[in-house]
Every structure is written in structure tokens, then in C-alpha cells.
């Protein structure tokens, strides 16, 4: 399993792991060095990595991937409620539930391709969301979201120890999963997922998926049954989403229906395109950028802006605060919109293309990044 990776891939993998593991220190100057956001970086990184296995490799654009994330979350929280606060079973349940759900939806949706496939996945996700919000409230707790309560059975935990007074914490064999330990758990999962994704990208299976994206007809006349390939990719990427969902529950034991809404599915599409479709690292970068903006830009308020521009003369300061105020705080959506437009207009290959261009400018010809890019193929599919 560990054989056959090229030296460049090992370097990429080790570099990636290192960057993830030291991110609490490196991201602190940017205001992102706190556990909740770092956890989100990892979780959405996993979500986007998985989405990219489907979209980046096969070109099938699912517009309902958030449904799997939601199912993973619900399954994980139910595991906390019914069995144990240990995160390992909950993660397993989350992945399994999302995987099963993906088998069903994938089997039906993959009967169509192109935009018809997209709309089918969208329809299933929206149905899941609407039902979770209303009729399925006994399972999902509707708008409030599924939460832990004091009188949950938790049969495994309660078999070994008397329940404490308050709500228990999620844990990994005794280590609390909030704060930095939670981040390192997610980071571990992200690194494993990255490794698996890299294996898939470099494997014959990944090659077949790329070939399907390039010319599905040729694949059929070349003797491949493309349906199981597509379904496998769909289910794998659904399981990644399920893992991401269960990690969300592990670090913060709540599952809300809005995780399944179309906007959430749209978000992962945007993360992937922003980072670079079909590239290995791109989707993780895209996820990071979007989550960073959501959390950091929205937190700016007039007070912080005034502090920021305090060095300017009074009149200028007011103007600067007014201008910047358009883009931060409640205007962070505007910034996001502008960034989407700029990236698509000037960097169609996403952030990874930007990096590649910079590398070229600097005259650095790193083989790995070139291989990375060509593997991704510069053209995102429809």
C-alpha cells in the first residue's frame, strides 16, 4: 500500500502534513489560529477533497453533496446519544450512513449525466433538507438541530460508569474532543484523507475516472463498464462527506438541517473550483479561503476598522473605514462575490493555477507542482 509512490508524492504528502500540523502556530498572525476555525479548515478540507474525487476526476457535478454531510452528522450525533461519547464509533457510523445513502442516490442519479445529473442530486438533497426540517423532526429535531440531552440512553457509556451531572463531552478514549485535541483529531483525519486521495489520483482507478471525464463514449467502446466506476467514485466522495459531517458532530455535537441545504452544496462546489478542480491540494486551499473569509471578515466591525486605520489622518481614516466597511462585517459576502469573479476571470484554474504561475514567474520549475497541475488537467468539466 505504501509502495509505488514517487519521491515527489512523498514530499508533497509530508509537506502537506507538516503544514497542517503546524497551522496553529502559522495561522495565528492571520487571526485564524484558534481551534474552532482550524477544525473547520480540516473538516471542509475533507469535504472538498471528497467532492473533488467525484467532480475533479469524473466531471460529474453533484449539486447535492451537502446531504451526505448532513446524514453523517445525524448518524454521528445519534451514535453519541444512543451508544457512547467516544468519537470512533460515531465516525464509523457517520461514514457508513453517508456511504449507504450515497449508494442509493448515486445509483438513481447516475442514470443521467451532465446538468440532468446535477439537478437530480440537487433534488434529492433539497428533499432531504425539507423533510429534515419538518416531517422528520423526531429523527432530526428540526430547525433546532439534533442535540445531546441529559436523559440520552448512551448504553455503552452508562454500562461502565454512572452518568455525571452535566452533559458529557465527546472524547477519544478519554481525550476531550473540543479545542486543540479536537483539531488534531480532525487534522489526522485530513492527512489520512489526503493520503487516500493521492493514492486514488495516482491509481489505475483514478486514471479510469479521468478517462471517463475526458471521453465516456470511448471508455464504453474500450470495454469499460463506466457505471460502477462512477458509482464507486460517487460513494467514496459521499463517504468523505459523511466523515466531514461526523467530524463536525465530534467537535461540536449538534446536527442541523441547514447543513443539507443547496447553499451548503454550492459552497463545496465553490471551494473546489476556487482552489482548482482536479488538483490534489486545491480543494483544501479553497475550503480554507472560504472558511477564513466567513469567520474572519465577518468579525470585523467599525471599532476594529477604526483601530486598523488609526495611523491615518482623521478625514482619511473615516473614508478608509467607510470603504473597508463595505467589504467586511456584514459586507463579507460582497468580498466573497468579488473574489469568485476575479478568480474565474483571471485564474480559471483556481488558486493552484495562480500558484503555478507564480512559480513560473519566479523561475522555479518544481516538477511536483507541474505534475500536480497536469494531473488535474486545466479544464474543469461541466
Amino acid at each position, binding site marked *: 500500500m505504501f*509502495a509505488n*509512490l514517487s519521491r515527489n508524492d512523498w514530499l508533497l504528502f509530508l509537506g502537506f502534513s507538516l503544514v497542517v500540523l503546524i497551522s496553529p502556530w502559522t495561522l495565528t498572525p492571520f487571526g485564524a489560529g484558534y481551534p474552532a476555525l482550524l477544525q473547520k479548515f480540516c473538516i471542509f478540507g475533507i469535504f472538498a477533497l471528497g467532492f473533488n474525487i467525484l467532480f475533479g476526476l469524473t466531471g460529474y457535478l453533484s449539486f447535492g453533496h451537502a446531504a451526505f454531510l448532513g446524514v453523517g452528522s445525524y448518524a454521528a450525533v445519534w451514535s453519541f446519544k444512543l451508544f457512547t461519547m467516544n468519537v470512533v464509533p460515531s465516525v464509523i457510523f457517520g461514514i457508513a450512513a453517508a456511504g449507504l445513502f450515497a449508494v442509493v442516490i448515486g445509483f438513481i442519479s447516475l442514470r443521467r449525466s451532465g446538468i440532468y445529473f446535477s439537478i437530480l442530486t440537487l433534488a434529492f438533497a433539497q428533499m432531504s433538507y425539507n423533510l429534515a426540517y419538518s416531517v422528520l423532526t423526531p429523527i432530526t429535531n428540526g430547525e433546532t438541530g439534533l442535540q445531546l440531552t441529559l436523559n440520552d440512553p448512551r448504553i455503552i457509556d452508562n454500562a461502565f460508569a454512572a452518568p455525571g451531572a452535566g452533559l458529557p463531552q465527546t472524547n477519544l478514549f478519554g481525550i476531550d474532543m473540543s479545542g486543540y485535541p479536537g483539531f488534531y483529531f480532525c487534522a489526522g483525519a485530513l492527512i489520512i484523507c489526503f493520503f487516500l486521495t493521492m493514492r486514488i489520483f495516482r491509481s489505475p*482507478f483514478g486514471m479510469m475516472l479521468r478517462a471517463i471525464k475526458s471521453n465516456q463514449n470511448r471508455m*464504453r467502446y474500450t470495454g469499460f463498464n463506466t457505471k460502477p466506476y462512477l458509482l464507486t467514485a460517487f460513494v467514496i466522495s459521499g463517504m468523505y462527506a459523511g466523515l466531514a459531517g461526523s467530524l463536525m458532530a465530534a467537535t461540536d455535537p449538534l446536527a442541523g438541517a441547514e447543513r443539507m441545504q443547496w447553499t451548503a452544496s454550492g459552497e463545496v462546489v465553490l471551494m473546489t473550483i476556487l482552489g482548482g478542480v482536479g488538483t490534489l491540494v486545491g480543494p483544501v486551499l479553497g475550503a480554507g479561503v472560504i472558511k477564513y473569509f466567513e469567520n474572519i471578515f465577518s468579525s470585523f466591525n467599525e471599532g476594529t476598522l477604526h483601530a486598523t486605520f488609526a495611523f491615518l489622518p482623521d478625514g482619511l481614516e473615516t473614508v478608509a473605514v467607510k470603504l473597508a466597511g463595505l467589504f467586511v462585517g456584514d459586507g463579507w459576502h460582497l468580498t466573497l462575490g468579488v473574489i469568485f469573479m476575479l478568480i474565474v476571470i483571471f485564474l480559471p484554474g483556481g488558486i493552484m493555477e495562480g500558484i503555478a504561475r507564480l512559480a513560473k514567474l519566479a523561475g522555479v520549475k518544481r516538477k511536483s507542482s507541474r505534475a500536480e497541475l497536469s494531473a488535474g*488537467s486545466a479544464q474543469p468539466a461541466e
Partner: protein
Amino acid sequence: MSTQNMVLNVADVSKSFGGLKALSDVDLQIEEGTVHAIIGPNGAGKSTLLNVCIGRITPDTGHVIFDGEVLDSHQPHEINQLGVSRVFQTPEIFADLSLLDNVMIPAFARRDGAFRFNAIQAVSGQADIREEAEAVLRDVGLHEQRHALAGSLSRGDKRRLEMGMCLIQRPKLLLLDEPTAGMSRHDTNMTIDLLKRLKQRGMTKVIIEHDMHVVFSLADRISVLAQGRIIAEGSPEEVRADPKVKEAYLGESEQ
């Protein structure tokens, strides 16, 4: 002819599109190890015939029997796995992938079958398949460019690449739909050489071609299709002498 060495047997196949009868009661036997050319004017139904053979189109009536197996309800990939490969009129290749990948992919189909979830190994570790692919690329004269993207090739090169993709599968039956159309004279001659070399390896081929130079330098047998019917069949000499053929086809094309 005995039925044992009959690779492909097209029996009474008819196909209509709307009111248009593309094939009517076509009977065609392809003998093992031969090069069988199908010629005929535009719109005679040649491509439809090939489409029926690879399962792209289901015939209205009649059957296609390949290697003793009736293909009626077979999916295209199943037919290919039985040993039928096709070169299309407009090249069907993986434009976003390298030439090497283009040729390795069909090799995987031959080795691993229609589906195998092989995410454990790395492509780079498959030395045998890679070597074979490089050999095929040398065969079709594209080894130099093996790392280029297939989409960047000239039309003639794309067609040769597609031929390589079919060859690596070592099919029992290779269908070629106008393999030299739009090629320069030089490319055409290279292609003829390639096909001649293949002939020595004993692969059965069905070839649709307009270029009579190509047809007569390669074919063992020729069938002439006009308006969805086979109007003549025989050795090149017999066909060349057939007055019906002259009337329907050769006459106009040899002007």
C-alpha cells in the same frame, strides 16, 4: 466457407431511422484472419453497420453473432470485452490525457476487465502495461510525443493514436471506419504500412474506406453496400469487375 472460422456473422440485419431505411436485410460474414473492406457511396449505411456491430445501435430485425455469441442484448463494453475494437471516423480519444495514458487505458481494460476497483496500486507501478504501451506507440510512430496531450495532435496522428489504443487490446476483430480520411498522402502511406504489418499478425479487420488505393492494397474481400443493401461481394478482382458496382459506385469515384 465453414462456420468455425467465421469471426463475425451479420444475419438479416435491418435498421430504420424514422422513415429512412439505413440497413435492409444485410447479411455479412467475416472470415478469421482476413481484411474485409466495406465500400459504398455516402449514406449507404456503412457506419450504421459498424454501429450495429459494436452495440451502439440495436438492429430492428436480425442478429449479429460474434465468435459464436449472439450480441443482441450486449452492452458496448461487453462486446468490446469479447474482442471487438473500433476506430471511429472522427477520432474518439482521451483528449485531456497524455498519449501514454491513452494507450495504457485500453490495456487495463484487457487485463482487468470491465470494472476493477484498483485504487491500491499506482499507475506508475504497472511496468508491464507501460512497456507494452510504449511498444504500441512505437508501432504507430508516436513514441516521441508520448507525454504530450492527445488533444494537441494533428488529425492524422489522432487517428493513429486511436489505432494504437485498439491494437493494444489485441482484439479478435478490429473495425476501422475510414482510417485515412483527411490524411495527407504521406500519412496515408504510413497508415497503409502499419495496417499491412498488422495483417501479417493475423488480426481480423473490417475496414470502411473511400480511398480505393487503400482498399485495394489491403483488402482480401470486399463487400459493396448501397442504399442499405449489399449489392456485391467478393475478392477485389471480382468486385472490380462487377458491373453493378461500377454503376453504383466505382464509376463515379474513378473519374
